[in-house]
């Protein structure tokens, strides 16, 4: 049952991810990305990381992607662009960089050792809260500062005469 669901979600995620790249229209790409993120949260649920799954949908699919689609709809970009031609030389950098990223991911996954612990103990909101506010307190606070800087920056850009 879990295996069948895994392949279902994985297929949807991979299909949607490919669709993000293939689609000509920017809005369809953004919508495929939302489908991909939601399928990913399904995979998280199968790993018993309920909290992560729900947060994934709230933050990425529900908040960030709404703003993306919002901007795309406002600009109403034409479906077909010629701008891609100007960036043709990027292909030659893109392919090696992509392969390098793939290598990094494979190397990381290869080195991961399975942990002998119940998944529910890691994935519960309590466990995540505890580790966020003890072991990872500094990165957590640093991230919040980073987001604050981005917020202030956005306000400064939007309102030149404060």
């Amino acid at each position, binding site marked *: *049952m879990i295996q069948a669901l895994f392949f279902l979600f994985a297929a949807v995620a991979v299909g949607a991810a490919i669709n993000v790249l293939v689609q000509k229209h920017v809005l369809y790409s953004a919508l495929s990305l939302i489908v991909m993120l939601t399928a990913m949260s399904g995979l998280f649920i199968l790993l018993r990381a309920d909290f992560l799954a729900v947060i994934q949908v709230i933050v990425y699919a529900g*908040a960030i992607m709404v703003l993306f689609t919002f901007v795309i709809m406002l600009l109403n970009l034409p479906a077909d662009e010629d701008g891609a031609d100007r960036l043709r030389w990027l292909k030659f950098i893109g392919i090696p960089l992509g392969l390098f990223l793939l290598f990094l991911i494979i190397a990381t996954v290869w080195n991961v050792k399975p942990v002998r612990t119940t998944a529910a103990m890691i994935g519960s909101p309590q466990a995540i809260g505890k580790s966020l506010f003890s072991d990872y307190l500094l990165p957590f606070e640093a991230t919040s500062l980073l987001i604050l800087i981005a917020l202030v920056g956005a306000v400064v850009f939007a309102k030149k005469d404060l």
Partner: protein
Amino acid sequence: MIEYFTSWDFVILIIKIVVIFGAVMNVVGLLSWIERKVMARVQMRPGPTRVGPFGLLQPMADLLKFVFKEDVIPSQANRFLYIAAPLVSLIPAFLTFSVVPFGPWLQVTDLSVGLLFVFALTSLGVYGIALGGWASNSKYPLMGAMRSSAQMISYELSLTLSVVGVLLIANTLSLRELVLSQQSTWLGFIPRWNIFLQPVAFVVYVISGVAETNRLPFDLAESEQELVAGWHTEYSSMKFLMFMMAEYANLIAVSSLATVLFLGGWNGPMFGPQWLQLALPIVWFAAKVGLFVFFYVLLRSTIPRFRYDQLMKFGWKVLLPLSLANIVVTSFVVAVA
């Protein structure tokens, strides 16, 4: 796997899903009658009276009318998204009820992150409106969709943050445990409901709840005087009906969540024989949800619409600081006590 699908647990689960889905569908239909009748009474009109006793069969007549109407798709619309949009808004609205505890024994599933699950679905509901407005490829729907997206993103913040105070007290995210945490009483007769502990959070939640469901006085997405009908201007027939069903389902969902979070869910006086003891929690729950729904309908018929800049100012400069202050104060009290 096969054993599970043939076990009684599975059969009971299916029965629960059918019962809850059927009940919600019926209440959604009934709500359109309640809304018209209550609004009519407030405005000293009789409201629907012709179809059935007290006009009670009006929703059935409306349904038939919607089904047999011509389904128009504008020629310049984006067909795929135009058809998908009503579904995208309807499905999350109904999925919410999979975690709502209607009674001690009537809940489809109790997730450990139930409350966040509801918020995740609410945040996905925006897409139905945004896509519907955009896919129509017409001025008014696009403006309505833009307004609605901005409004829902803004008020989602205060809606989510207002709940944090309750979570700090209850120490859980599961909706069932939230209800159980409000079971006891003070002095033997005052129920220990969160509304008494978190009055500020309650007010912020109720106001943001109205904004989140796009209803008056926050219905800028469809404000008929300026935008014809906002994001669903181009929609007709069943697709329009699906948008309306999503709106009413969201209204019931927001009311159910308010009941669970602040009014003690199914808790209430228990008496009588065994069968009554089983039925009473659901009666209390339905009564409390009904109270909220009635309040929202009254609100619609009595308060005029906000201006757009007032709406944004109110959300960001009043509700958000208020809910943040509530979190700070509650954290201090919880830490000291």
